[in-house]
């Protein structure tokens, strides 16, 4: 039904008395934006500038703190060093938590959380150094990141702010890595490198699951970053296995095609782009490994070029058809 048909139909129903003019007027009144909504829209349109100023301010504050601490580092003693790094970080987190509690929709609280979140891990490292805690094994760092992860997990459950979820994920990731390295430290028959590759795949997969869980929630702003790092972790870690194993050379095609399917399922341009980039990298590797000698480099390059064009075309079409059918920010 086009517009004219719709209007004609509507006019017919008004004439027949099925719908009254008052009902239509009431419907139109209800859909008109209120003054409150107009001012909210205006406020939202100003937010990017405010956000930029907040971000610049946070960077300036952080750089200032770092330079200030560096200047007086040698003169303040152990207690002063711990106070100025860890202490300051904790103060910023408390201020951030208080500001978020009082003004949930104001960004200033989240900016305080950013500063605190960046200062606290460094502060704990200073604490370990100043207390002369042995760092011959990674266990002290495991406990530090485990503790920070738990604090941020509790904070984000209480306050429901994306920046807190971000720090929960970041510290949780560091905790998982340090925990695994602590467990395998000094175990001679376990290969650190292989374990780290599989761990990175698992962490990347966890990011995908988190992003799926965050869809249409207050954490959905983090999905772009989760898609990006999830893709890099999964496709990058898996790609590193390709060089050692023919089985992985075959399996990798399944992994990247799985990535393409995932990009459609999650409607994510980022996963689509990353899958395509890693598919191109893999095809380039396979070509150089198996076909460069038999076909010769010039022919291989021509074929590769056409494959790239084909993959680019397919990628753009997947995006148009399945992902970006509606206007959405890059995710």
């Amino acid at each position, binding site marked *: 039904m086009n517009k004219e048909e719709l209007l004609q139909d509507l006019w017919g129903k008004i004439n027949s008395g099925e719908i009254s003019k008052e009902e239509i007027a009431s419907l139109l009144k209800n859909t008109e934006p209120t003054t409150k909504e107009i001012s909210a829209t205006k406020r939202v349109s100003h937010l990017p500038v405010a956000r930029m100023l907040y971000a610049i301010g946070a960077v300036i504050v952080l750089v200032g703190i770092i330079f200030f601490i560096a200047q007086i580092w040698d003169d303040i003693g152990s207690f002063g060093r711990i106070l100025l790094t860890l202490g300051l970080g904790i103060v910023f987190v408390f201020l951030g938590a208080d500001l978020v509690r009082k003004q949930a929709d104001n960004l200033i609280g989240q900016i305080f959380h950013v500063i605190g979140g960046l200062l606290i891990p460094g502060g704990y490292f200073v604490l370990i150094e100043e207390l002369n805690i042995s760092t011959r094994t*990674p266990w002290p760092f495991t406990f530090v990141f485990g503790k920070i992860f738990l604090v941020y997990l509790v904070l984000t459950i209480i306050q429901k702010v994306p920046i807190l979820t971000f720090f929960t994920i970041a510290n949780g990731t560091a905790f998982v890595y340090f925990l695994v390295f602590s467990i395998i430290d000094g175990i*001679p028959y*376990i290969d*650190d490198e292989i374990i780290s590759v599989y761990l990175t795949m698992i962490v990347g997969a966890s990011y995908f*699951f*988190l992003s799926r869980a965050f869809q249409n929630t207050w954490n959905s702003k983090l999905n772009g970053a989760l898609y990006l790092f999830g893709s890099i972790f999964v496709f990058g870690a898996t790609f590193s296995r390709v060089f050692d194993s023919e089985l992985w050379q075959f399996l990798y095609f399944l992994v990247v095609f799985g990535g393409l399917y995932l990009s459609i399922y999650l409607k994510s341009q980022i996963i689509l782009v990353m899958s395509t980039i890693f598919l191109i990298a893999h095809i380039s590797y396979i070509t150089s490994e198996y076909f460069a000698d038999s076909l010769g480099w010039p022919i291989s390059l021509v074929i590769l070029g056409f494959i790239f064009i084909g993959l680019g075309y397919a990628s753009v079409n997947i995006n148009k058809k399945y992902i970006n059918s509606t206007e959405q920010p890059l995710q």
Partner: protein
Amino acid sequence: MKEFIKKNITLVLAFALPIILIAVVALVAYVPSMFFNSNYNFIYATCGNETYYSYKCNSYLQKLYSVVNGKLTVNQVALNIDLDHDGEIDFDKNYSTHIFFHDVKKNVSREITLQEAQKFSLSGLITDPDGVNVSGQYDGGTDVFPFYNGHSSYNYYLEKNKSKKRLNLINSNERYSYYERNFYFIGWVVN
């Protein structure tokens, strides 16, 4: 609980995957050493200069201690000579040596006197009667991007075929532990 898991299955999987990997790694790392041990304790010696590490100390220990007829024997070692003609005297007069008894069940060492050590019946073989030996290995520490630990050390293990168990020897967690020559295995205690 079941309802929560059903509703939040993706969130549960996000947490479950790393936890499962950690559990598997812990099992692979700890289980083999939990069930592997020697049935025999052993004694060993360490040697060092109080102020600096001497790389010839281990050679000194090899010459100083030997197992003869199942007993620890102390040999005379000539000092102030240069047998290898490298322009330096072979052994320092200021070496301090220590003898330790290692309890393999508890995986702890305690220092003993020379007289105590000489009371034990020792096997002069490098493997115990069950075929377990003490071997050293250089551990480079965790050095996977982006977590460079940088702490390398030379550690000792009970070893038989592919089974290994790390030994907590005296000095193994402190300075000099990255030098393999700081440790000299004397013998298994066979009674």
